[in-house]
């Protein structure tokens, strides 16, 4: 009798799993407002303190809860004359026109992968400061991000 607990628990957990994940492909047909367009939020933003006042990098995650994809098309900042979006391919980094934010998904910018490149800096960002950045998207309105400047060795996985 008690032994059946095991499989039963498994089934329940399985059902929860379905409920949790099901959204990604079936929700687009829902009648809810928001399901037909992107719903963006930005988190985990930071800038590692750069070595010089020539260039800096920036990272963040864009989460899209909506049912339509969007695209990060350009970035501006009070601190830099130019901000470009880059991807890393093998051991080279190259500028891209935009980065897709999938429906019900995320766009992740992280060290060793996609990142922002700030050039023509007006001052050298220092640890403890924040840098204002505006993200522009193909469909959604612009999003203001306050990017904290972290140590050059900051690792978001360990938090220091």
């Amino acid at each position, binding site marked *: 009798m008690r032994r059946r607990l095991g499989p039963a*628990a498994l089934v329940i*957990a*399985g059902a929860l799993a379905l409920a949790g994940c099901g959204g990604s492909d079936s929700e687009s047909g829902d009648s809810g407002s928001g399901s037909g367009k992107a719903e963006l939020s930005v988190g985990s933003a930071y800038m*590692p303190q750069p070595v010089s006042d020539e260039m800096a990098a920036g990272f963040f995650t864009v989460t899209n809860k909506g049912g339509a994809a969007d695209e990060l098309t350009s970035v501006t900042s009070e601190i830099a004359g130019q901000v470009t979006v880059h991807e890393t391919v093998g051991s*080279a*980094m190259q500028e891209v026109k935009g980065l897709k934010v999938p429906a019900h998904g995320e766009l992740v910018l992280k060290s*060793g992968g996609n990142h922002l490149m700030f050039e023509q800096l007006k001052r050298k960002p220092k640890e403890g400061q924040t840098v204002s950045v505006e993200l522009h998207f193909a469909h959604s309105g612009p999003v203001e991000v306050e990017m904290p400047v972290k140590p050059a060795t900051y690792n978001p996985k360990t938090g220091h």
Partner: protein
Amino acid sequence: MRTKTFAAAALLAAASLTLTACGSGNDSDKPVAVVSEQAGTEKAATVLDKPFEKPDLVLTDTQGKKYDLRKETEGKPTLIYFGYTHCPDVCPSTMSNIAVAKKQLPKAEQDELRVVFVTTDPDRDKPAELGKWLKGIDPQFIGLTGDFPTIQAGARTLGISIDPPHKDKNGKIISEHGTQVIAFSPKTDGGYVLYGEDATVDDYTKDLPKIAKGENP
């Protein structure tokens, strides 16, 4: 009691499967749950069975003087990395990680350690630029520049392949950096430990005292 444990285990297993399934939908190649599970146990250092020979590189240092890598670093614990200064992301973080870890060594060992940054973009990284950039990270670090084919050949002997910088369609220069740091033993002068670009300050802090003595981390 036993059955209960089993049930809990089953639930846990199912729950972690759930995470994996959801994670892979967003981040195409890596299931989030699995990666974070391994992070604690994974070692940053790879100790090589067959160490690399130190490349026979004679280049120019940040003072504009000739620098013979083998001669200058003989019998010294040495870390070598190939990168460039117009690199916002991986190059400064790799060098900064090593710099912070190095400061935790006893002073005498800090002075013995040779950290060599070889540029992969010698047209832009002249001795002065290289020197200025490295000074912002650690004034003891050695920066080397020279002609690209020499640097490329040196990197190749360490299993690092670098293409020459080229311009993209907007006229911007695209350079490449090595993805590994190679540590050379003071005892054998062989390159016996590799670090990938995700090696952290903590990894280097833990390992540098060993490398300073030529021991395996």
